[in-house]
Every structure is written in C-alpha cells, then in structure tokens.
C-alpha cells in the first residue's frame, strides 16, 4: 500500500465515497465525497501524540472485529496508509459536546481542525476498477444452534486473525475474549453459512479451508499443549502448494473430523461441541475452550449502492456479474468499468491479486491508444429521411443522441439526429421509436432481423 501511495502516478484518496457517476468509457465524471477527517494531513506527521492523549479510549474497534478498543481520534489500523489519524465525529467529545479538545492542545503541528467539513471532489476518469470486497455473513442472526452469538468465545475466523496478529488486541496471544485465559482446546468449524441452502449461502467461500488450516497451525504453534480440532465437510485445496500446507497442519497434530457440528453450548467455562465423525460413523463431543467459525463471505454491505452507481449487474447472491464467466472475467457490461477481487465472488488473496492485475492490464490496454476502438454496431442516421422530431433524443437511455443543424440545397437549414459514437451502446431503442424510419442499427438492421425471422419460420 505504501508503494502505491508513493507512486507519482497514483492519487490515493482514502476516507472517500463515490457519490455520483456520469459519462462513459474514457470520460467518467465522478463526484467524490471526501469525508471530514478533522486533521490537516498537510501538517500532520502521524506522530500519534493525539491518540495517546485522547481521553475517550473505550470505543469498540471496528478493525479488531469488536475485540479491541480505540480512541476517538484514531488510525484505523497499525499499518494504515497514510499513517495519520482521523477523528470519529460520533464519539469525539469536542465535536458532540464542545468539550475536551485535548488532541488539539497537544498537537505539536496544530494539525487538528474541528471545523473541517466534507468536501466534494469532481474529476474525470478514463476507467474504473471496482474492488469493494466482501463482508462476513452475519451468522449470529440465523445460527441459533451455535448460540446466536451469545457465547463470547465462539468467534469468527477474522476475529481469530486479529487475536493472532502482533498488532491485534492481545498483542498476538491467543486469549479467550470472555476471561482473557489461553484456550487449550480450540475447535474450528468450516462452512458456517457456506454450502448451506437453508440458512446461509449455496456457494463455497473458497478461502476458508486454507485460512482454517493456517489457524489450526497457529494454535499448535503458539499454545503449549494446544489442541486444534477441525470439523469439515470437504477439504478443498486446489491452489498451488495448498494441499501440502494442509497436510503439514495434519502432521503437526491438527485433528480433522469430517462432519458438520450440530450444536454448541456453554456449560461452566467449557463450550460443548456436538458433531459427528462421519468417517467413523459415531457421534463425537468436545469440551472446547474456544470455537472459531469459518463464516461465509458475502458481498460488501454497500455493494448494491456501488453497483447502481456504475450500472453493474449482480448475480442471485449479490456478487457483481462479470461480462462473461469464461471469456471476460474482469470486464463488466458497462464499458470502461472492471472488477477486481471478491466483489465479483469469493476468492483468496492470490486469486484476488491475479484478478486485480488483469483488471489493471485491461485499463492499461485501454489507455495505451489515443483513440478507442469501439463496437461498430451502433445506430446510423439517414439524414435525408430524418424529420428532426427529436423523439429518439428523449428515448435514448445513454444520452447519445443530439439534434444538430445541417444545411442542404433542397431544404435549407434543418435539424437532424446525430449519434455520439462513444456513447451509443447499440441498444436500438431509438430505431423502434423513429417514425420516419431514419434510424437503423448497424449489424441489427430491420432488414436483417426480418430476414432472420423469415429463415427461422421456414
């Protein structure tokens, strides 16, 4: 990320939201809301004194998946780029109650600006790569058999990830959220919400098998006498060197049991887990100290809004639809808009990087020429016949038709329809509206389609 931020040709805009998009490939006019940071980034050096001094230290940290705390002026996470803080206006006492202001008093650069407002930035872009990522499926709503989220030591894989991270809430120690003790027996359950037609999602989330293998490995590595028990339905390791990694975890001592867990409940300070070892054909019970759920990936919560802005279609699960499942995996139906990563469907990091690289290459190809080659299948105007009624102008969904004035010897100055070849998407709606029959769609002319009807009805 920091390499991206340093790059002379990259303008990194963080803490921003796209509000409006108009235009078309090569000419997207985008309105971006730069949310108020209340910190002047030109002055701020990111020294962090403000964060240390902020008295409001008990705010739930989003980045730590609710397991850690942060201050009201905070950096979203340790290696954030740029590594400078923002103020959370909902929790800052200065902004909510006009009291405090300790950060401003302590800032050596006078970078705190409580008067900061959201800014609207308007700019023109040639292409767009959408990479809005994923959220984790909210298992707490539907998985009552795992406790509807009421047991603090039943956590998600992402929460476990924060626990083992050196900059996480426990400094990298695996500790139970309930009592801060080190768990000895950790149960992992895969496919929570994935491959679950009734309560969750039909699809496989693809990344869970590998990260669960990693987590099991970390339990065995970091906890003395630790036990990792993994309940799985299938172990799916199709990537390069993936199966080898899974086998390594098994050799290190992780117990893999084939079967879905039916129930988790708390009794005393143990979590009782009921499953089946379907290879043995016997019910199994584990008294666990912690349970980690590999929950399904779902499209990011505001992907619907983003999709609407860019005219993207989605599949039945809400993932952005690529233009063709085999032949156009990073393109969309909107020219100049490309997809990268999990916004298109669940995938792991190497696949995300590969797809993002492909999207970047597609953009580079697009930008490498001075003129764009577009589809020739667009509307043509027979100016001799056009009456200039303008019906097509209002009907065109792409605003590709204007009236222009021409002059000919027979009829003098008059108005006729003119099609912008960059904007016209070749839908042909105008051809149906044109009463004079002056518009026709190249490649799909009235004559051609009627000939097809003729041929098919033989």
């Amino acid at each position, binding site marked *: 990320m920091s390499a991206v931020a340093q790059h002379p040709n990259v303008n990194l805009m963080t803490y921003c939201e796209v509000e409006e998009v108009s235009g078309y490939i090569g000419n997207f006019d985008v309105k971006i809301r730069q949310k108020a940071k209340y910190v002047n980034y030109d002055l701020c050096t990111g020294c962090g004194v403000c964060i240390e001094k902020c008295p409001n230290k008990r705010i739930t940290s989003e980045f730590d998946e609710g397991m850690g705390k942060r201050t009201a002026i905070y950096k979203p996470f340790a290696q954030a780029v740029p590594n400078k803080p923002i103020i959370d206006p909902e929790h800052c006492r200065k902004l909510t109650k006009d009291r405090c202001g300790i950060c401003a008093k302590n800032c050596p650069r006078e970078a705190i600006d409580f008067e900061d407002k959201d800014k609207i930035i308007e700019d023109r872009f040639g292409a767009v790569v959408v990479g809005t990522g994923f959220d984790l499926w909210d298992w707490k709503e539907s998985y009552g058999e795992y406790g509807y989220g009421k047991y603090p030591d039943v956590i998600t894989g992402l929460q476990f990830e924060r626990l083992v991270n050196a900059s996480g809430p426990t400094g990298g120690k695996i500790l139970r959220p309930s009592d801060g003790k080190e768990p000895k027996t950790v149960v992992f359950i895969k496919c929570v919400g994935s491959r679950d037609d009734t309560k969750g999602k039909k699809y496989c989330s693809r990344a869970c098998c590998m990260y669960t293998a990693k987590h099991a490995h970390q339990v065995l590595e970091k906890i003395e006498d630790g036990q990792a028990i993994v309940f799985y339905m299938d172990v799916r390791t199709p990537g390069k060197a993936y199966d080898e990694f899974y086998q390594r975890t098994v050799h290190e001592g992780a117990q893999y049991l084939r079967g879905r867990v039916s129930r988790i409940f708390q009794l005393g300070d143990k979590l009782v887990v009921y499953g089946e070892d379907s290879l043995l054909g016997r019910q199994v019970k584990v008294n666990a100290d912690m349970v980690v759920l590999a929950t399904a990936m779902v499209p990011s919560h505001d992907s619907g809004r983003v999709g609407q802005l860019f005219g993207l279609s989605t599949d039945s699960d809400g993932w952005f639809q690529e233009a063709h499942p*085999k032949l156009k995996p990073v393109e969309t139906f909107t020219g100049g808009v490309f997809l990268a990563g999990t916004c298109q469907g669940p995938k792991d990091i190497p696949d995300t990087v590969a797809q993002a690289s492909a999207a970047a290459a597609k953009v580079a190809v697009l930008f490498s020429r001075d003129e764009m080659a577009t589809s020739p299948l667009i509307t043509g105007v027979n100016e001799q016949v056009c009456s200039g009624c303008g019906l097509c102008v209002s009907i065109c969904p792409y605003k590709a038709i204007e009236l222009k004035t021409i002059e000919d010897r027979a009829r003098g100055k008059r108005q006729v329809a003119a099609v912008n070849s960059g904007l016209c998407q070749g839908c042909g709606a105008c051809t149906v509206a044109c009463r004079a029959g002056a518009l026709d769609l190249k490649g799909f002319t009235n004559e051609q389609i009627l000939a097809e009807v003729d041929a098919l009805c033989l």
Partner: protein
Amino acid sequence: MSVNTKIVAFCCNWCAYAGADLAGLNRMQYPPDVRIIRVPCSGRINPQFVFKAFQKGADGVLVAG
C-alpha cells in the same frame, strides 16, 4: 411439446441470450421448438418483427429481456 410447434424467441443479448448461452455452458437442454433471435436489447424489438413471425407461421413469440 410437439416438435412441430415453432416459437420465435427474441432474446436480449445481455440477459436472456446470455442466460441461454450460460445454459449451454452448463450443458442444459431446451426444446428444439424454440428458435432464438439475438437482439442487442429488448428495446430493439419492433412490433413488426412480431407480426412478421406470426405471419410466417410461428405458433408463439417470446420476448425475453
């Protein structure tokens, strides 16, 4: 369905036709009575195409988009 019926289906390139294409990718079958005409958009379908199909003996016309 009898194979003697003729149904002309006008399919939008982006959805119905893409769906038919995907059905092909997934090795799904549809009856040979359906004869597909790809159009760039269902908005491209002029009522005269439909009349023409009936005139030429189609038993049904499907506009899908």
